[in-house]
């Protein structure tokens, strides 16, 4: 006869589940204390939030005449920033790819640097670059360049690692050197992926670039900050709606191009 499998003590009393649940509840309680959560206050003051939302939902449309220029500047910043970041990312991605550079030590160092760059959030970079180059769109371009560099380089080296090894071996067998292999075997295989990832990063950067101006890094964010600090929420409303429209149009355009590519 079959026996019922014996359960260990831990299994019998669901110790693991209880442990994780308790830990989770403890973390939740700790976080609530740390952040001073006060739901009572939240619900009594929630109408404040809706008052602002209501003011935003009556946009002052004539403000559009002022902000379309900075909106275009935002898109220009995103485009140049993404391009710079991508150009810098390509050599790093090639060195970080497992099937190109066999030396794990070199790869490790490059990946470590890339990981470090990726940890920095966009607004933090913006604050640093505003301090370095001064207030204006140049700081935004540098911010987006560094921000997209971290993201693109990872996407790129992962794309390179999935390529077909055949052409590489064929070129190696005919006596090609490393540079020739990269140009004639690696790049043609990943070019479409690269362009697709470039467009994807561009989409993300357009979203990111709209708030960089909040810290003085150019673009429409400057006006966002101005309207918020002047309590002119009907202007903030226009900006949010305009950003929304621009993001949707650019996403649709970029999606269309990416679908054509793949």
């Amino acid at each position, binding site marked *: 006869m079959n026996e019922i499998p014996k359960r260990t003590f831990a299994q019998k009393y669901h110790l693991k589940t209880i442990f994780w649940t308790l830990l989770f509840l403890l*973390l*939740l309680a*700790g*976080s*609530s204390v*740390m*952040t*001073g*959560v*006060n739901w009572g*206050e*939240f619900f009594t*003051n*929630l109408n*404040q*939030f809706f008052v*602002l*939302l209501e003011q935003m939902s009556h946009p002052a449309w004539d403000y559009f005449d002022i902000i379309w220029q900075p909106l*275009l*500047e935002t*898109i*220009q*910043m995103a*485009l*140049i920033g993404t*391009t710079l970041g991508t150009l810098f990312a390509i050599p790093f991605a090639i060195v970080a790819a497992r099937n190109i550079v066999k030396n794990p030590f070199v790869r490790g160092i490059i990946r470590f640097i890339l*990981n*470090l760059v990726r*940890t*920095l*959030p*966009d*607004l*933090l970079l913006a*604050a*640093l670059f505003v*301090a*370095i*180059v*001064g207030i*204006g*769109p*140049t700081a935004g*371009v540098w911010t987006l360049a560094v921000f997209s560099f971290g993201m693109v380089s990872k996407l790129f080296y992962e794309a390179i690692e999935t390529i077909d090894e055949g052409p590489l071996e064929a070129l190696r067998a005919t006596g090609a050197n490393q540079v020739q292999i990269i140009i004639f075997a690696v790049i043609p295989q990943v070019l479409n992926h690269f362009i697709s990832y470039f467009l994807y990063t561009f989409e993300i950067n357009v*979203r990111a670039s*709209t*708030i960089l101006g*909040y*810290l003085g890094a150019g673009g429409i964010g400057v006006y*966002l900050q101005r309207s*918020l600090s002047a309590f002119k929420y009907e202007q*903030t409303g226009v900006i*949010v709606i305009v*950003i*929304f429209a621009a*993001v*949707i149009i650019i996403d649709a355009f970029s999606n269309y191009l990416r679908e054509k590519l793949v």
Partner: protein
Amino acid sequence: MINKKNIWARYQWLVWAVVIIAIYLWAFLGLDFAGIQESARKVTSSIFYGLFHPDLAYVYNGSGEDLLSLIVQTLAIAFLGTFVSAILSVPFAFWAARTESNKHFHPRSTSGKFVLVFIRTFPEIVLAIMFIKAVGPGSFAGVLAVSIHSIGMLGKLFSEAIENMDRGADEALKAAGGRKADVWLLATFPTILPEFINYTLYRFEIAVRSASILGMVGAGGIGTPLLFAIQTRSWSRVGIILLGIIIMVTLIDWLSGSLRKRLV
């Protein structure tokens, strides 16, 4: 006719090249690159100096305003915000998920997706400022901003998980005579739970990054002292905070990554 096609095929690249060059020219000429501060080089080297000579006294001094307590606070904002957002996202996900037909336009699903895109695009710092108006400056406003903003992305990921889930268990329960609540509780929910947790952890990684900058508008966490240190040009303070953020994000990414690997 054939000839015409050939001409288009042959010169297509030229059209693309002209368009791309025109776009880049527009972008380069439109931006005002002038006005890089003369001190740029000095500031850069000061930042690197600060990174290598961090203000170690700031790490912990027991005042509650030091690096460690603020990093814990940042993590608390991200954790609580993501938790609340994960719960709020579930109804949005079921709203936006397209389940039965493959029609291009599905009123419920399309409207849900549109709402999610709008939440996603609504700038997080604007949300933070709106919540600061409601509950006052501090990390609670940050928690609220993260909880609402994350719905945009979590709702989208959750709804995609629902669209792609395996409906076998659902059908089995329906066939065995289960009520709607039974089907949901015993089949749908257990099937999608691992994926929901996976996406929530992923979103938590992103929330940690955004919680560390929300302080720049006064919504708690490490962002406030960082912005203050940059503005007062105390570079060794900037250095230690940057190191703190880098270590925090790296650790969280690693932790969440290993948890997610065990989950899948």
